[in-house]
C-alpha cells in the first residue's frame, strides 16, 4: 500500500544529515559545555556553531539566539520574560484570538500576576487586521504577540506591519514563528520583531530542541533560574545533541529555502485545487495566498474529522484534524471558532502538512482515495440527508 505522511504540523521526520550531525554528542563528545577542559570545549564549539546557523537562518546575530526545549517554552519565555522585565512601563498585553495555547495560557498566567490583555479578532481567513491591533494598544501596552503563521489554517499574518506600528509606539513585539521557521523565509530585521520563537521539530530537526530570538538590548527575565548558560537567561545544562540538530536543520533550511518553498507551494496548490475541484461542499480554511507553503486545510461539510482520519489512515495517509472528537477535551479548535466557522463545520476539519519528501504521487494518492471516503461518510450522515431533503 502506498503511504503518505501528510501531518507536518504534528511532527517532521529527522533529516538524515541532522541525525548524522547529532550522533557524536550522544557518545563521543559528551562533555558539559560549561567545563573548561577539552571535553567541554568540543561541546561548546558545537553549541556555538549551532547558534551561528540559527542566527544566519533568521538574519540575527548569534548572541541574539537562546536555546530552549520546545516552541511552547520559547513562547512562555518571550511572553513572561518580556512582560515581567518591562512591568514598570505598563501591564497590558495584546495577542490574537488564534495564538497557540502556549501564548494564550502564558497570558492567562500573567493575568494572575496583575497583567491584563486584549485578544484581537481574526477575519474569516484567519488574518489579523493591523488596524485592530492598533486600536487595542493603550498607554499601558508593553507587549504584542501575533504569530507569524497559523499551523492549523495555514494563514500567514501581517507580522511586519504589526511590528512597525508597535515600534512607532515603543511597544515590544513577539511573533510565534514555530510553524513558519524553516518553511518560509524569515528575516528578523525585515520583520522588525523584538522576539521570535522557533522549534526544530517543525523543519526536520529533533523534538525537544527550540530557540527564542531576542533582539539585542531587549529586556527579558529568565523563565528558568540557575547557572550562566545562555547568557544567564536560560539555566540548565545544554542539550548539546539537540542543539547541534537544530543548528544543522537551520543550515539546511537556509541553503534550500527557495527550492523548498517553490516545491512545497506547487504540491500544496495541487492538493487544494484537486480537492476543491473533485468534491463539493469542501471549504478551504485559512487564506488562499497568504499561506504557509506546505499547508492545506479544509472543512468537509456534513461529516466529522476523526472518522475521516481513521479512514485515511487505513489508506496509508496520516493527517490531523481540529474537530472536537480528535481532541482529548472534546472541544472544537479555538482557531476555527475564532474565524467564525459554526460548530458543525468545524467538526469536519482536516489539516494536511506536506514534508520535504512529499511527491506529486502522494497528493494524487490522496486525491484518489479521499473523495470516496467523504462520499461514504456522507451517506451515513443525518446532516447530509437533511441537506438533500431541504435541497429538493
Amino acid at each position, binding site marked *: 500500500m502506498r503511504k503518505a505522511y501528510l501531518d507536518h504540523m504534528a511532527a517532521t521526520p529527522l533529516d538524515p544529515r541532522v541525525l548524522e550531525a547529532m550522533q557524536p554528542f550522544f557518545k563521543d563528545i559528551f562533555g558539559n559545555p560549561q567545563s573548561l577542559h577539552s571535553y567541554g570545549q568540543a561541546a561548546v564549539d558545537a553549541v556555538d556553531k549551532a547558534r551561528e546557523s540559527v542566527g544566519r537562518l533568521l538574519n540575527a546575530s548569534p548572541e541574539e539566539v537562546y536555546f530552549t526545549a520546545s516552541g511552547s517554552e520559547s513562547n512562555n519565555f518571550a511572553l513572561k520574560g518580556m512582560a515581567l522585565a518591562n512591568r514598570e512601563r505598563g501591564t497590558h498585553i495584546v495577542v490574537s484570538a488564534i495564538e497557540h495555547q502556549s501564548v494564550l*495560557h502564558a497570558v492567562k498566567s500573567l493575568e494572575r500576576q496583575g497583567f491584563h490583555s486584549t485578544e484581537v479578532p481574526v477575519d474569516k481567513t484567519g488574518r489579523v487586521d493591523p488596524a485592530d491591533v492598533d486600536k487595542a494598544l493603550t498607554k499601558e501596552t508593553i507587549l504584542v504577540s501575533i504569530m507569524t503563521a497559523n499551523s492549523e489554517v495555514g494563514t500567514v499574518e501581517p507580522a511586519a506591519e504589526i511590528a512597525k506600528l508597535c515600534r512607532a509606539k515603543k511597544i515590544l513585539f513577539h511573533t510565534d514563528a514555530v510553524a513558519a521557521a524553516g518553511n518560509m523565509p524569515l528575516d528578523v530585521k525585515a520583520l522588525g520583531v523584538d522576539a521570535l520563537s522557533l522549534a526544530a521539530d517543525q523543519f526536520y530537526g529533533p523534538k525537544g530542541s527550540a530557540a527564542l530570538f531576542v533582539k539585542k538590548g531587549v529586556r527579558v527575565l529568565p523563565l528558568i533560574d540557575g547557572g550562566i548558560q545562555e547568557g544567564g537567561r536560560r539555566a540548565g545544562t545544554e542539550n548539546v545533541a539537540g542543539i547541534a540538530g537544530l543548528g544543522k536543520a537551520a543550515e539546511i533550511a537556509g541553503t534550500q529555502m527557495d527550492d523548498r518553498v517553490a516545491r512545497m507551494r506547487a504540491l500544496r496548490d495541487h492538493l487544494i485545487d484537486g480537492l476543491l475541484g473533485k468534491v463539493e461542499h469542501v471549504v478551504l480554511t485559512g487564506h488562499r495566498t497568504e499561506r504557509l507553503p506546505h499547508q492545506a486545510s479544509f472543512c468537509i461539510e456534513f461529516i466529522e474529522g476523526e472518522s475521516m482520519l481513521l479512514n485515511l489512515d487505513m489508506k496509508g495517509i496520516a493527517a490531523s484534524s481540529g474537530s472536537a*472528537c480528535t481532541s482529548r477535551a*472534546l472541544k*472544537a479548535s479555538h482557531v476555527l471558532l475564532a474565524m467564525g466557522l459554526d*460548530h458543525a463545520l468545524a467538526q469536519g476539519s482536516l489539516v494536511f502538512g506536506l514534508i520535504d519528501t512529499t511527491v506529486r504521487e502522494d497528493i494524487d494518492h490522496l486525491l484518489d482515495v479521499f473523495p470516496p471516503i467523504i462520499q461514504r461518510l456522507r451517506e451515513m450522515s443525518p446532516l447530509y440527508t437533511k441537506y438533500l431533503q431541504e435541497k429538493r
Partner: protein
Amino acid sequence: MMYTDKVMDHFQNPRNVGTIPDADGVGQVGNPVCGDMMTFYIKVKDNRLVDVKFQTFGCGAAIAVSSMVSEMALGKTLEGALQITNMSVAEELGGLPKNKLHCSNLGADALHAAIEDFRAKKEGRAAKPAPGAHEHEEECSCPYCDGPLDEHKGVCKSCQVELAECPHCGQITNARGEKCIHCGAEISPS
C-alpha cells in the same frame, strides 16, 4: 490503536446504515457541538423491531456504537430493546476509550428515542424529549476522567469529581480545587 478490533470492524463495515422513509418511529439525539449526532429509524410489527436503520454524524466510536446498537436491537421486542444500555453496548464492543464513552450513551438514547416516538404516535401524545441533548460544548466531557458530562453539571457521574465552570477561562474544572486546571486561576470554593 485506541479502538478494539470489534469497534474498528463496526466502523469500517457498519451494519444497518440508512433511513426508513415510512418508519414507525424516529429518534434523534446529540448535536454537532459535541461532535456526534445520531438518528435511528425503526419498523415495528407485533411489538418487535423488524427493521432498524441509523445515520450518524460523528467519530469512529459514534459510528461503531450506532452499528452495534442496531445489530443488538434488531428482532428484539420493544421492552427487550429498551433493556439495551450504554454499558451493554460498550461491553459488546469490547470496551471504548474513556473519553468516547459518551458516544455509547448517544447510541442507546437514540434507539430509545425512536421507540418513544413510536409509542407516542400510537397513543396520540407528544413524545418525551430525548435525553443526551448536549447544550454546551463545555459539558461534553469531564476534564479529570474524560467521562461524559450531561446537562446535570455539578458532579461527574463517572469519577464523582465536583465540577464548576472556571470564572476566569470558562472551562470546566474541579469545584473543590483551589486553582483551575486549565488556566490556573484561583477558585473560591462556593
